């Protein structure tokens, strides 16, 4: 099991579109993925779960991954968050 805490740097945060990129990326890995914020943990492959965290701009989330490709999963997801989900505008 690996985990990493990252800050949300895109505005307005982990909402519909960015959560969609997050879940799409998470789904590429075999490992289970969880996302935690303020003591609540959700399945990182569930878009509804991820949005329900209300991870706004400036907040921090902890991503956990467990499985054969956990290292790659966490690296990809953290990069995605740090790069503002490659959103334009």
């Amino acid at each position, binding site marked *: 099991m690996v985990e990493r805490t990252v800050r949300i740097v895109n505005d307005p945060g982990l909402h519909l579109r960015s959560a969609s990129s997050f879940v799409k990326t998470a789904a590429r890995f075999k490992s289970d993925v969880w996302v935690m914020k303020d003591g609540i943990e959700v399945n990182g492959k569930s878009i509804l779960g991820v949005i*329900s965290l209300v991870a706004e701009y400036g907040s921090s989330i902890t991503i956990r991954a467990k499985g054969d490709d956990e290292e790659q999963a966490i690296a990809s997801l953290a990069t995605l968050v740090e790069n503002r989900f490659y959103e*334009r505008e």
Partner: protein
Amino acid sequence: MATSESRILRGVAASPGIAVGKVYILELEELHIKEKSLAPEEIKPELARFKAALATTREEIEEVKNTIRQELGNEQAKVFDAHLQILDDVVAVEETVRLIRQEGKNAEFAYRRTLSKIAEEFDALEEEHFRNTAADVRDVKRRVIRHLLGKPRRSLGDIPGQVVLVAHDLTPSEAAFLTQDSILGIATDSGGRTSHAAIMARSRGIPAVVGLKYATLHMKPGDTLAVDGNRGLVEVHPDDHALEDYTRRQRKFLELEGALLDIRELPAVTLDGRQIELSANIEMPEEAELALRKGARGVGLFRTEFFYMRSARLPSEDEQYEAYKKVAELVYPYPVIIRTVDVGGDKFASYLGTERENNPFLGWRGIRFSLERTEIFKIQLRAIFRAAAAGNVKLMFPMVSSLDELRQANAICREVKDELRDKRVPYGENCEVGIMAETPAAVFIADLLAEEADFFSIGTNDLIQYTLAVDRGNEKIAHLYEPLHPAILRAIKTLVETGHKHDIWVGVCGEMCGDPAGAVILLGLGLDEFSTSPYLLPEIKTIVRSVTYAEAKELSERALCLSTAADVRRFVEEKLASKFPQITLP
């Protein structure tokens, strides 16, 4: 509730402009669901029925997504990616399955209960962006339930005449099909500036006020309503004086917008006299008018997938002919370039036999599809050649990657024309036939293709994707999708030089010419025609009119000497920034 006394309601200004018209109320669609308790032997079939409804819904959302992507681009289409994920969300699906399996509930009831609960949780959030998710959840819910109940899809395409649309809220799928054609303005009870209805209204140029809370209560169909999308209010039954005021301000608003369009009637000609044909990409026949309003001299790309994707049947020859003719007559004497159907890739329809492939962009699409399904191809060609009798129509083939394909397609054209002549049906004998240059193969054999094509229209979106081997829908590599990559500049240069050597004209019909940096480079590379989204035309024309061809040429020659995309972009943007401080570069 409604009286003939005037009443002003305040909401959120969601899309600028002013509209006055008759109210059309879009009622919330009633989906009656009964709670049932299943017998043990009914549970397995019920689960299968649920899975089947998810699969049908998935296909439907894919279709909407593709339509929106073509029309409004990738960014807008992403909403529907999210809808697909909501549909497949493990939490939602598992809870529904549990309710069916363990509590023996029917699928409609189980799914509604699960998704309504989730939507209500989102309703309670304070942040608008997050709260909006409730509308997405409900939209997906209604789609699935509609399929479970076997109810047909509701469409905004059926609204009669020109109306002001009043609704409690618009689902993303309803909002996706708003057209300026029938909807003058929009007023909704719920929603904010970032709701789907607002985003779509802005991108379609329809004045809108949202978040009015009780608009649907205060109005009835046929009432006169003024929508003031600038100030964020609506007025029911405005008196004569107010009406006059709205009309005056509507005119003023359009004038202001028109200031940018002042150059509409002017040609796209450089300071030293080189003229560019500036035309528009359209997808639906109705958009041709918008294109002209934005200053297009013709339609440089008329996509025809719309006809094939909007319903699960083949469009008839007459239906296509009428649509092509309408556009041809409207833009005459300017040309309209009709691209034969490009299904496959990301646009598939089970009734055509195209399906999701492992590698769809390298798959059965474009001209490859048409050459195999010649019966479908011929119907479209007949419609195009007949329309060519009514205006300045040209046609082009998508995805050509070999001379054989062009020859086969040309032979079928000959056959179709002979048939029309024998039957004494009027058609355009001299209709130009060109190709969309969008594969690297077409670049390498440009000399051979130029011998047998009347023009090249460079589809930069696909040319970039194939040349750089980058799928820009893939976030991991989207940043590698770079129109100013030296490989792309060289490919375009080859196409232009080869085309001109063979005395055919070369245009470009991708997004690259809608970007200021791209436009200047393309101008300098010697392109004869630009075709892009109607909304971008005024800006691009301004750019063309304020440079000389000589300096654009020098700029592109120097850009061609640079080794990396980053160098090219920096160089071009620096040059542009000093010349056009008012243009914001992306």
